[in-house]
């Protein structure tokens, strides 16, 4: 299952309690070529909506808000040297971090794929 936020983050459930988080293709397209990614600390406790990572392109810095509350399990260390992975594959190799969810019911408030596509259309 994959869900989306209005701020263009995605969260994909890897098990009942753990999820992977990233930014969407739309978000990377808006930012342009990424040159630096700041990731959260492992074991950090984060609330839904907190600024938890920063993605920086040549021209701007974008805050990433956590789509869910929980504890950071791991971060995508490949992004330290190759932040452009996010431009190349935002939904795959360009993932940001994995998180152990405090409350999986938070997901119910997020958009599914078709809702998100409709939301993108509404932004045009």
């Amino acid at each position, binding site marked *: 299952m994959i869900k989306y936020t209005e701020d263009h983050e995605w969260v994909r459930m890897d098990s009942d309690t753990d999820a992977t988080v990233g930014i969407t293709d739309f978000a990377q397209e808006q930012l*342009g070529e990424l*040159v*630096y990614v700041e990731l959260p600390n492992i074991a950090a406790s984060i609330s839904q909506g907190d600024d938890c990572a920063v993605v920086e392109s*040549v*021209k701007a*810095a974008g805050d990433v808000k956590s789509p869910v509350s929980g504890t950071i399990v791991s971060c995508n260390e490949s992004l330290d040297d190759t932040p452009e992975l996010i431009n190349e594959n935002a939904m795959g190799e360009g993932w940001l971090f994995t998180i152990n969810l405090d409350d999986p019911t938070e997901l119910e408030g997020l958009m599914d794929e078709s809702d998100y596509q409709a939301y993108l259309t509404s932004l045009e």
Partner: protein
Amino acid sequence: MNDKNLHYTPLHSLHTELGAKMVAFANYSMPVQYPGGIIQEHQHTRNHASLFDVSHMGQITISGENAGQALESIMPMNFIDQPLGQHRYGLLTNDAGGIIDDLMVTRIATDSYFLVVNAGCKVNDLRHITEKIGKHVTIESHEDKALIALQGPAAIDVLAKWVPELSNLRFMQASNFNIDGNQCFISRSGYSGEDGVEISVSGDQVESLAKLLLAQDAVKPAGLGARDSLRLEAGLCLYGQDLTENITPVEANLNWAIPKVRRDGGARPGRYPGYTIIQQQLTQGPKRKRVGVRPIGKAPVRAGTEIVDAEDNVVGVITSGGFGPSINQPIAMGLLEISVTTIDTRLFARVRNRLVDVEVCKLPFVAHQYKR
């Protein structure tokens, strides 16, 4: 879907055709980048040649018998002795010694000077210039003219096809030329740190000229994003960030733009707005100065970021900051207290409530390639 509050350059439909991402800049709809992206456009400029639309900038002619003298009363420059065809960088100053705008001036006739001013400043500049010297000179704003820049090591070679004589022009000289039937005023100049030209041409003709240049193998379009990363690597100032009405030319480390003839001991010292303050700073040194700032790690440090010393005292602010594609690291310029402006001084930037190590460094980050 044109926004009626925005201005559009004569190349707007070409930008759209080329797939540009358009943004509002200084009240103009301008291309920030094309589909290749900022880094590719930046690298292409350094290695080949890029075409930039800079038609949003103001083009103004000031003429009259005493035009040079009049202009000297509002800018600390040597207009009276400026050779014909010489292109120069200059500053409009206010009474407090601050900078109203930075601009380029070419003497196009004995009694006539051609100015290129910043887009965001042009309305204010025209009002200011008219107010100060309008009684003594004729001021003409060329709204019908477009301006394009061809920047990069291949620029002169590309143009040689139509204007071989362009290679005789040295950097910071300008003249009239004809490119494939288009009457152009070309200065060998630019704001990328590379060799290249800026071409002033009628708004009616600019699209066909741009298409002609883009059809050449070495030429690709580039937007404001690459223009910004190129000028920052070259250590060049951006008005509104590195230069403002509250920053003097001496603080901006632009002393070289104020010729000796307009300083104390020169033939025509002072008699321009802000002279007392600027001369005092030239003599005694400023309290703060623009310098290069290199973040030690990979995190970019953006404009507006506070700089602190080891005791957490605020010692300055970043005025321009981003990423330098040619050197593959973050780069910045800042206005710092004079006591910390020695090269290699280690300081800290307060980025998102943590401290990033930075050091004061020499400018430019990438050497200029001007053909003088």
